[in-house]
């Protein structure tokens, strides 16, 4: 009987750790920066949602294009209306996984270099991406960070010739996610 209780409690423990595998954020930050000799354009998004499965390294991101905040009102309007066509393609998503998740010790604090591979959808166009980033473990908190370039032409984002000097062909994307354990019921 004692044995039975022991086994049962071990199993319960195991089950509870199983449930804590998913990490969530709704306030992830993505910044994009276009740098040209004429001007630098920066836009910030603070409402990126993401789920990270710590067990197998699976990772998804989703954001609404209209959520990017620009310094200048007109830039934001042109971005949504003419470049990424937010009414037609309201969302941008990423689906992939950390290929070297086995190298990350989730129980030990520290910063681990990771390699993320997956597919990124912008402007309705899907492209494979491979990104180097970091995972920082501090107690229960997991932070993911990465910077990578996006070539606008790859996603069929056309820049009219009159503003070609003002907008970079390749913009830099910076991702910063502070995850919290995902509780299904807590929503």
């Amino acid at each position: 009987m004692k044995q039975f209780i022991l086994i049962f409690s071990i199993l319960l423990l195991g089950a509870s750790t199983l449930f804590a595998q998913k990490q969530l954020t709704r306030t992830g930050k993505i910044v994009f920066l276009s740098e040209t000799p004429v001007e630098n354009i920066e836009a910030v998004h603070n409402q990126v949602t993401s789920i990270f499965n710590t067990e197998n390294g699976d990772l998804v991101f989703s954001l609404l294009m209209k959520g990017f905040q620009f310094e200048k009102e007109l830039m934001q309007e042109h971005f949504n209306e003419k470049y990424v066509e937010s009414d037609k393609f309201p969302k941008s998503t990423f689906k992939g996984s950390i290929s070297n998740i086995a190298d990350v010790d989730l129980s030990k604090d520290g910063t681990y270099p990771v390699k993320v591979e997956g597919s990124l959808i912008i402007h309705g166009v899907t492209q494979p991406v491979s990104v180097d980033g970091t995972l920082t473990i501090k107690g229960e908190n997991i932070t993911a960070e990465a910077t990578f370039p996006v070539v606008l032409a790859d996603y069929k984002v056309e820049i009219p010739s009159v503003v070609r000097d003002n907008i970079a062909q390749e913009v830099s994307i910076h991702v910063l996610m502070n995850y919290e354990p995902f509780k299904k019921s807590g929503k």
Partner: protein
Amino acid sequence: MKQLRLLLLFLSFATLLSPATLFAQVEEEKEQEEEEDLMAMLEDLEEEPVNYAFATFKGVRLINSHSIEMPGEGVLQMMISHRFGRVNGGPYEFFGLDQANMRLGFEYGIKPWLCVGIGRSNVFKTYDSFLKVRLFRQKSGAESFPFTIVAYSNMAANTLRAADPEAENRLVHRFAYTHQLMIARKFGERLSLQLMPTMVHRNLVGTPVEQNDVFAIGAGGRVKVSKSVTINFEYFYLLPGHTADNFENSLSVGVDIETGGHVFQLMFTNSMGMSENLFIPQTTGDWLAGDIHLGFNLGRVFTVKRK
């Protein structure tokens, strides 16, 4: 016997809850979870956003009239407008280009929904000032409303020297007021339409039969032909009365060309004035007779206050 039964019961329990079966179950659960689509989970978490219609028109003017668009908060817009003479002036008048009427104006977005502006035009040496307030926004999604509605009021002052200095010339005689409601809807990406019930009040009119209060209904819209170019039209129908009998309805067609921070509007219109009190009740040009003015509005934005 009893003991044996108990033992059997225990054994069956033990088998049921044996580590082997439990682990198998866990394994199964794990597999299921792996198969679970994280993206679908994410979508479940996302709330439906409110989608506000934006970029209903390229510029803050339809053609002569205002549009429901406003400079953003903290944005100063400079506007230079020209209306040349009538094209039927022929080669002698260089098809109207010898004569230029112009207006220089500035407008500023105090709030995303509130804007003020001033302007000066050489037509009757008119100073004008206006207030524009957005009351409702067209939206869809979690909340929905079919129109964007903007209230607009303009005060204009004619500052020409009095024709007869001996006559009674009171300051109030120089003012005219326009009150307008702009009701617009963006029908998809290409088409936007705007309806403008308008009232113009003039403190002084030339003769006793002329109307101090003139009512008109304006209608206009745009068709987008490329990402940066739209074709616009605008028409003001004067409600029956003395003004409608003696003046023409204002009709304009134009094209908007947008570059980074500029909007260039080129138009043909039978109106010469560039404020509502002039182009709505005082249009004299007849399109069919060729009384058409070539004109342009050039808008340039300056971001005064960054977000």
